[in-house]
């Protein structure tokens, strides 16, 4: 009988993408080398040619990113550069990445592998000029607002790679306006979804795709223009890629991209061995969710604190292992995490702390192993969760890797690479909806003004950098004038908040505070930004005696007399804070509302009301604060960033202001005395840890702790395998101990 010839696949060499993916995985498992590349023939034969190819690919990704910025419409792209462009192998493995929103690099790869697994090649069809759009976190993603636009790259009829662009959207058509609605507690209401859908053919967006966006989002022009920008970038990169392949030859290209990944895998292992010290690190983290009094479905009205222990192991072979054993339950809220998001967080940290040569790719991540227990907060079992603030934990927990790896750098002597932590995305800003200053009654927007400029933790040899953001290193806060085009608000002030650092021998960065006048709208509903989910429990970010800095807050003043003050030419508020006195409450009359929790409804404001956001990033300090060099403190005093009260209290530094010279003068003698006194005070007030342990153990056994904390521990004691044993052993508790809940 005549056998039917096997259908030729669209992948390289006529294989199907599925075949390529299975083969790649099999060979890696069998050999331990990416595509079995025990030898590196291209690098051995002509390392310069390989290097040239890499640089050309990198330049294409970077140029593509700039193209998107210029074509896109939203301030998130134009002003704060919340985007990135990445090149992938046919199997979805990252080859090179642009600068930008680095957290998405491995995640887009997961989307590609999902598409391959779902047989898109056969069922959907993958053709030159197609674009696939995805923002469905049930596949992979960071949150609904981050939209991926992905194009295949063909050569000679065979798919030889993919280019992907990520852009964050400010509005996604969810239950509530803005892209991160805090009350959208399941997937059915958290926004427009593109489940890796074909959105363009022959480089033109499908009309059905555009119609869907027009009807299902509140600001379709912005959403669509961002899609155009992303598609333009993808096309530009694809065209450049074809030039590169033509120049180098397709066979060389395919061998080279695999070799680049294997080289990076080996290099990363070697870097770890040369820069760090092996061993085990530990640090806990929490996520707080307060929905008991929120307008969500009755069965979702739950307050909860979830524990996420972070165990990090640098192994003798140079690989990293991260274990989330002991993590508590997932829940019906928008902050749950997924394994792919955790990979994104790890990739982002490694790219900026150890794999910093511009060659970070899939090979970097091949050296990282993670245990993400199923049916927990970090690996939920339901496919129907809302994920519009999924990055809460990656950007709050992710810095733990930075701090722990820093500890290893410190032990090895590379002190210049050491930095304490900070919550990588502070709250502040928030979702605004209602009517805008142009009369649009379906207005909706998320202001991420300071997200890319929140400031970082201290270094081991210098103070934290003000207005940087490690999750997006080349971003900034954008021009006020551009934000004002999109928001019915006028900026009254944007400044650094005094005393807002984490104290230490080196301090964390000071954080920003913005003050706005609500402008030309009769109704603007406000929520706080649902970001790091820190309220009662601060993150453990300080190093060697440094403290975590303050967290965010928001204030709203309604029913104000601001218009009268303007008419009379009297002072308004600009965000000035001086030892408890602030110009918002001092200068303007009105009804004050203060919120310190993330993701909460504030109120409805109108023309003339005032909103103030403090973007506290909990930027942590390094070292004992009383060992701070007085000249560094003087600099902060002179810049009015540090109050003399805290200079004395936290650093034990005495100084007097010289009115004539207009500067602070350090009293070195008194400073030395104060520091000696502080050491004695410490020894007098502290107790041996054993005594503390006995007291605390009694309290635990008697259940003297808030209900939410008991519930948090009970979840982790029930879910975990290793962590519960460690917890019970430390407190000498019975084998099956759990807390009795009220």
């Amino acid at each position, binding site marked *: 009988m005549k056998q039917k010839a096997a259908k030729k696949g669209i992948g390289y060499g006529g294989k199907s993408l599925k075949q390529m993916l299975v083969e790649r995985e099999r060979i890696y498992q069998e050999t331990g080398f990416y595509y079995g590349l025990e030898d590196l023939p291209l690098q051995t034969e002509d390392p310069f040619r390989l290097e040239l190819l890499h640089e050309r690919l990198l330049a294409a990704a970077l140029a593509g990113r700039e193209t998107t910025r210029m074509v896109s419409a939203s301030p998130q792209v134009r002003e704060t550069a919340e985007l990135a462009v990445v090149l992938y192998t046919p199997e979805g493995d990252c080859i090179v990445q642009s600068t930008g929103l680095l957290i998405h690099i491995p995640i887009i790869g997961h989307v590609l592998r999902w598409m391959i697994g779902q047989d898109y090649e056969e069922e959907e069809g993958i053709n030159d000029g197609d674009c696939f759009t995805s923002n469905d976190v049930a596949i992979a993603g960071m949150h609904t607002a981050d939209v991926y636009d992905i194009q295949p790259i063909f050569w000679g009829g065979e798919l030889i790679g993919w280019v992907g662009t990520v852009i964050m959207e400010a509005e996604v058509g969810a239950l509530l306006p803005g892209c991160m609605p805090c009350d959208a507690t399941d997937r059915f209401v958290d926004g427009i979804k593109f489940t890796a859908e074909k959105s363009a053919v022959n480089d033109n967006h499908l009309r059905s795709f555009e119609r869907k966006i027009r009807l299902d989002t509140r600001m379709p022009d912005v959403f669509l223009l961002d899609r155009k920008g992303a598609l333009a970038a993808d096309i530009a990169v694809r065209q450049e890629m074809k030039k590169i392949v033509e120049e180098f030859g397709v066979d060389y290209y395919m061998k080279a991209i695999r070799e680049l990944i294997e080289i990076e895998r080996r290099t990363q292992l070697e870097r770890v061995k040369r820069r760090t010290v092996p061993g085990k690190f530990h640090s806990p983290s929490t996520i707080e969710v307060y929905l008991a009094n929120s307008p969500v479905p009755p069965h979702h009205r739950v307050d909860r604190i979830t524990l996420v222990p972070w165990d990090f192991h640098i192994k003798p072979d140079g690989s990293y292992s991260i274990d989330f054993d002991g993590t508590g339950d997932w829940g019906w809220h928008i902050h749950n995490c997924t394994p792919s998001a955790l990979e994104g967080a790890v990739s982002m940290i490694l790219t900026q702390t150890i794999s910093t040569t511009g060659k970070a790719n899939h090979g970097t991540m091949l050296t990282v192993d993670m245990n993400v227990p199923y049916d927990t907060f970090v690996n939920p079992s339901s496919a129907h969760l809302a994920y519009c603030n999924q990055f809460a934990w990656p950007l709050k927990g992710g810095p733990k890797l930075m701090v722990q790896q820093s500890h290893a750098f*410190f032990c090895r002597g590379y002190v210049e690479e050491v930095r304490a932590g900070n919550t990588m995305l502070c709250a502040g800003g928030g979702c605004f909806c209602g009517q805008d200053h142009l009369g649009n009654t379906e207005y909706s927007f998320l202001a991420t003004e300071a997200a890319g400029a929140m400031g970082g933790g201290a270094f081991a040899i210098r103070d934290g950098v003000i207005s940087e953001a490690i999750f997006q290193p080349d971003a900034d806060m954008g021009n006020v004038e551009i934000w004002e085009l999109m928001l019915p608000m006028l900026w009254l002030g944007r400044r650094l908040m005094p*005393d807002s650092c984490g104290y230490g021998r080196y301090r964390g960065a000071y954080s920003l505070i913005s003050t706005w006048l609500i402008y030309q709208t009769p109704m603007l509903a406000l929520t706080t930004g649902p970001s790091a989910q820190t309220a009662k429990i601060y993150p*453990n970010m300080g190093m*060697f005696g440094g403290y975590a800095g303050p967290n965010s807050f928001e204030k709203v003043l309604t029913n104000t007399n601001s218009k009268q003050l303007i008419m009379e030419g009297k002072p308004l508020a600009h965000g000035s804070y001086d030892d408890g006195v602030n110009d918002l409450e001092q200068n303007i009359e009105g009804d004050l509302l203060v919120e310190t929790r993330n993701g909460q409804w504030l109120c409805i404001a109108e023309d003339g009301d005032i909103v103030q956001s403090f973007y506290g990033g909990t930027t942590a300090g390094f070292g004992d604060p009383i060992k701070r060099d007085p000249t560094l403190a003087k600099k902060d005093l002179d810049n009015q960033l540090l109050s003399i009260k805290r200079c004395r209290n936290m650093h034990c530094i005495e100084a007097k202001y010289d009115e004539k010279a207009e500067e602070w003068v350090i009293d070195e003698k008194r400073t030395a005395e104060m520091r000696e006194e502080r050491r004695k005070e410490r020894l007098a007030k502290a107790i*041996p840890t054993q005594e503390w342990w006995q007291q*605390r153990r009694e309290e635990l056994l008697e259940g003297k702790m808030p209900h939410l904390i008991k519930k948090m521990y009970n979840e982790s004691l029930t879910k975990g395998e290793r962590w519960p044993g460690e917890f019970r*052993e*430390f407190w000498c508790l019975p084998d099956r101990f759990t807390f009795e809940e009220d």
Partner: protein
Amino acid sequence: MPEISYSKEVIRDLIEGKLPWSRTKSIISGYKDEDRFDKYVEILQEKVPWSEKILLPLTDELYIVQKGEERVVKCSCGHEFGDYRVNWKLNALTHVRDTEEELQELYPYPGAPEPEYCEIREYYCPDCGALLQVDTVPFGYPVVFDFLPDLDSFYKDWLGRPLPQEKEFKDLSSEFIMKKWLKE
């Protein structure tokens, strides 16, 4: 590529934050000096007032040192915290910052941590009163063992010079509590 190496003076200034920024930046951006660890330890050994050999700088104040056949954690002032595999915080002094006044010092704005839920634990050296670590953790969380180095793998596999008297790579903190504290 030529081997990168910096003088002890440069590394000393770098550690102490005294190196000019332009130089520091070039060190951050450049290839790393592979002989850093030994020079680093030599510099630190010269700074401390005691003679035990530093095996690993653990923090800016604490060191793991060779003391006879044991490896112990030692403060720069000379105070010893015991076996490096027992969390040194168990043998330190503890202060929990939980009064409103103490929290206000750190967090003068709305949204300070709540002491019922969050402990800000300060660990001091019992001799010199140096603040060695601040842990900010949920109420009732076990004392955090920040880092247990795998010293033998480090010296044997990564530096190529094994340490004498190999020790099992194991966290002995809970054993220490069971044996010493529970009985008392």
